[in-house]
């Protein structure tokens, strides 16, 4: 009995050892699989991050590639030529660049002071329970798709301007000696001014929400110190908050400008699509994005298509510079806030 019993103990031990060994093997397998999965996931996420970089690289390369024929044919003269004639295959970007810059300038001229004043209201004057609803309402303006601004601008806003603001401007500012040419010509309704005003409404939420955020980031002690020596609310904002938040505000303005420069649909509806440079802001014009949107699908011939892509490249370069500057400034203020 004894040997048998001993044997069985050995058997059990052996069996146990085999189990342990088997378990060790499976554990190693499982760990190995986990390690593989871990590495794979890490590389997958890294690849996705690199893909974002490649995306931007792809955009730049494809635009340069597509615009080569136009630049080869016209050289850098493309940038300063005023001609745009699909019949004779003669293209120049100046009217579109001019329209883009002028409409964005009008937009910023209105959106910046209004946006800053709204931010002033939201951070200093507004009762706390109203802050969030008003802030959200202003941000909803940013959420409305640009095509909605376009259709509204064409059917509601442009006729309204044609009947009221534009005749008023012609009758008043149109008679002031130096600036009279700016407001010459009949009130078309559509045109550079209308596009600029619509852009102002679209850019307003960007300027407002970023200004509000940087205003809120101003340390309370600074403001309290100013109030403590007897400053009025306006003086606190003008001499303490604004100087402190300056870089952030400029960043927000540049971000809005980037939007205004590249905005397509809202402008396409109301700009009038005329490839010429007029002194009057009431006259129809065109912008880079509106030209591409209007003409790309109808463009016949490689040179025409290539010229439109070259316009796209110019737009991309301009907005890239503006947006990069905006991000740089916002990053600086973020670092300072910590």
């Amino acid at each position, binding site marked *: 009995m004894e040997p048998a019993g001993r044997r069985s103990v050995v058997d059990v031990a052996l069996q146990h050892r085999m189990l342990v060994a088997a378990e060790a093997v499976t554990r190693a397998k499982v760990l190995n699989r986990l390690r593989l*999965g*871990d590495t*794979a*996931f*890490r590389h*997958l*996420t*890294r*690849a*996705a*991050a*690199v*893909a*974002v*970089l490649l*995306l*931007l690289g*792809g*955009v730049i390369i*494809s635009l340069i590639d597509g615009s080569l024929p136009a630049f080869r044919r016209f050289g850098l003269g493309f940038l300063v030529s005023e001609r745009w004639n699909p019949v004779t295959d003669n293209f120049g970007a100046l009217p579109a660049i001019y329209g883009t810059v002028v409409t964005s300038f009008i937009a910023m001229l209105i959106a910046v002071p209004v*946006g800053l*004043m*709204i931010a002033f*209201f939201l951070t200093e004057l507004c009762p706390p329970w109203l802050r969030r609803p*008003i802030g*959200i*309402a*202003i941000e*909803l*303006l940013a*959420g*409305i*798709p*640009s*095509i*909605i601004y*376009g*259709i*509204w601008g064409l*059917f509601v806003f442009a006729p309204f301007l044609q009947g009221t603001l534009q005749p008023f401007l012609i009758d008043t500012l149109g008679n002031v000696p130096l600036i009279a040419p700016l407001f010459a010509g009949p009130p078309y309704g559509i045109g550079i001014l209308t596009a600029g005003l619509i852009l102002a409404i679209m850019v307003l939420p960007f300027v407002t929400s970023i200004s509000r955020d940087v205003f809120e980031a101003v340390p309370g002690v600074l403001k309290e110190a100013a109030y403590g020596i007897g400053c*009025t*609310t*306006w*003086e606190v904002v003008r001499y303490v908050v604004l100087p402190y938040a300056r870089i952030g505000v400029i960043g927000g303005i540049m*971000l809005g400008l980037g939007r205004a*420069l*590249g905005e*397509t*649909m809202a402008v396409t509806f109301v700009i009038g699509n005329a490839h010429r440079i007029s002194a009057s802001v009431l006259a129809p014009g065109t912008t880079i*994005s509106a030209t591409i949107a209007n003409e*790309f*699908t109808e463009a016949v011939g490689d040179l025409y298509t290539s010229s*439109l892509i070259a316009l796209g490249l110019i*737009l*991309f370069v301009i*907005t*890239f510079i503006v*947006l*990069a500057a905006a*991000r740089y400034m916002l990053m600086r203020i973020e670092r300072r806030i910590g």
Partner: protein
Amino acid sequence: MAARYARRRRSNATATVLALAATAFGLGWLVLILGSLLWQGFSGLSLEVFTQMTPPPGASGGLLNPIVGSLILTFIAVAIGTPIGILAGTYMAEYGRYDRLTSVVRFINDILLSAPSIVVGLFIYEVMVAPMGHFSGWAGGVALAVLVIPVVVRTTEDMLTLVPNALREAATSIGLPRSLTITRICYRAARAGMVTGVLLAVARISGETAPLLFTSLNNQFWSTNLNAPIASLPVVIFQFALSPYKDWQSLAWTGALIITLAVLALSITARALVPSGRQS
């Protein structure tokens, strides 16, 4: 002294009035735009809009094919853009939070976030439409995906950064591998915020017109063939609004109302998902 005080009080009062006026001005546009949308679009809203195809000029019809087209394009864009965006955001927040690569990607991503969408259309035209030789639904979907990616990257990174490190440490201490810590713990903790990111991305692309103009083009008829041009709501609105026909214009208004309501519903849902004070 008193005169100076009075002047300071006056300029303060002026600034206050101006600030109030500016706020009223800003809110006024929202009311005006939504008001005229409801006024012009509501009358055209009927069952027909959702059950009939876009009509030829002078006939009655609906917006069924562009609505379905838009849904398909949005689905493709989200299906392609979300995984890439989430993975990239994961790398930036989890693996390479202090990497050089991360700060470069963040910078580039922020630029992509506000890059003109028409340029994205040109890009996809160059890499997909021109080589394939024809406009297609796929090209439109990919163009929209390019717009989805930066939104999702941004929110994923922000939301994962908010996940407390104690959660990661606890998971690691019981022997959970890094990848499982991220997918089982961090994703779950940041889920609401990440869903918000996707909703915001959908809201952003559902009204985009410019990148679709020369990728998916438009289609007057019922088509779900993704290798052919496909109708989409924004492009149909663009075409119909600029046409001289009254019934086309009124359909454009109705379409505009549908898009706006969808976008507003999406962005309000997105806001409701994230508790106040945690938005980026």
